[in-house]
């Protein structure tokens, strides 16, 4: 019994870690610790961690820049820290480990599978790039932060959505769209924040890496592809054309690692590879 429970925990280890991190980040902005205050002040567009570390979302600052604002130093430094972290280390980690909307869209996907909801309007995955471009162009033309009028991530934190009618309607429609209309529509196809972090983290060094075993070859199960929220990123790995996932779209959610019972996949921070590859040439 205990062993079964332990095994079940192990088979969801990445999911559990991810949820823990996501919820901790959300709570850090909300919970007042007596005698200390909050761990994080502000919200995901700009925050102060532990009263010291100032962080700023590079995408929101970019919109501000397009809207015609000169960039102030504290915000710029914060954006460089955040941007640098995703660009050089973590890739598009934001989407699956930080963003609170991911909790909602994952729930929609889970329900979709549970109730076997079939209808699926196919959307292009490049749609999000167009929305990204549109939000920057509109910022430029409108002189205001265009995506921030919609952005459910920061709106969620600003007005704890379910207490505000407009917020609840936005979240609700997003949820229903993901549930009934199109599979993984928001995070995988529409959200320009994800598209931005995908582009920014294109060369992030944290990667899902494959070491195919005998049994993986023979069974050809492809279960990792089935659970992946961005299945196209795993295709070259499964087809043995690549050692690791190189697409910027990979959110490092670890669903494939939870699903793989052969131990063929691992999450590796490939700092050494970057250096040695260069010296080889």
């Amino acid at each position: 019994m205990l062993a079964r429970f332990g095994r079940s925990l192990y088979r969801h280890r990445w999911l559990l870690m991810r949820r823990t991190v996501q919820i901790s980040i959300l709570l850090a902005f909300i919970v007042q610790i007596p005698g200390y205050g909050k761990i994080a002040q502000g919200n995901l567009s700009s925050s102060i961690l532990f009263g010291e570390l100032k962080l700023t979302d590079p995408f929101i600052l970019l919109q501000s820049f397009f809207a015609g604002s000169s960039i102030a130093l504290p915000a710029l430094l914060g954006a460089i820290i955040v941007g640098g972290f995703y660009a050089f280390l973590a890739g598009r980690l934001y989407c699956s480990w930080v963003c609170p909307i991911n909790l909602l869209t994952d729930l929609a996907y889970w329900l979709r599978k549970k109730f076997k909801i079939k209808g699926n309007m196919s959307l292009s995955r490049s749609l999000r790039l167009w929305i990204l471009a549109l939000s920057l162009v509109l910022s430029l033309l409108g002189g205001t932060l265009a995506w921030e009028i919609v952005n459910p991530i920061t709106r969620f934190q600003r007005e704890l959505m379910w207490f505000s009618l407009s917020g609840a309607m936005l979240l609700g429609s997003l949820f229903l769209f993901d549930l009934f209309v199109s599979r993984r529509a928001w995070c995988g196809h529409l959200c320009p924040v994800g598209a931005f972090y995908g582009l920014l983290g294109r060369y992030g060094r944290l990667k899902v890496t494959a070491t195919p075993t005998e049994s993986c070859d023979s069974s050809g199960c492809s279960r990792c592809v089935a659970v992946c929220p961005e299945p196209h990123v795993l295709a070259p790995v499964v087809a043995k054309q690549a050692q690791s996932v190189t697409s910027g779209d990979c959110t490092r959610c670890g669903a494939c690692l939870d699903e793989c019972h052969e131990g063929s996949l691992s999450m590796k921070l490939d700092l050494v590879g970057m250096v040695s590859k260069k010296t080889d040439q």
Partner: protein
Amino acid sequence: MAEQKQNSMVKLEDPAKRETFRQIFKRFGVVLVGSIIGQSMILSRPSRAAEALRPPGALPDLDFDSSCIRCGLCVEDCPYDILKLASWADPAPQGTPFFVAREEPCRMCKDIPCAKACPTGALDRHMTDIKKADMGVAVLVDHETCLNYKGMTCSICWRVCPIRDEAITLEPIESETGRLLIPTVHSDTCTGCGTCEKHCVLSEAAIRVLPRELGLGLSGRNAVGRS
């Protein structure tokens, strides 16, 4: 004859051509929908209503909208919990900080914590003197209901003013009913904190803080000219 007819039918249903047209119409549709959404967004660019006041040290409206990243650090650092980030229902562009003087006025903290907290320069974090703040200007908008105009010495606006005798003074005038003490705002020293509006005893305040361009006249090159 029949053969010819068949030929033309085949031409009509040329699948490659059909696909090309489909693609063209699809793109056209996307561009059309995109530009309608875009245009409506630009045209309906939300602007701040007169009763929503910005925290001290705020840039002029248009610059503020582009510089403020809606993080709410100013809101959290306000010791009196006066500031609020606008939601869709509020009278300011979404996510930007504002306060309504009649509900809670700015207390004019000497160390200006809200402005210091701003990471982007939407609020001037280098501002040192709160008396230089310009959140708006108080205007005695209603002479009919103001008690001082009725000959009663209410003067509450003058008494509560944090820079009393500089921003608001009581100016005596003679009228047919006797001597009146008129609350008079001096726009060069008024910071627009809104304390007078908050404390006005009437059901609707007779003195209100307005954005400067709405509350003040401006003479042209010629003192009586428009331009």
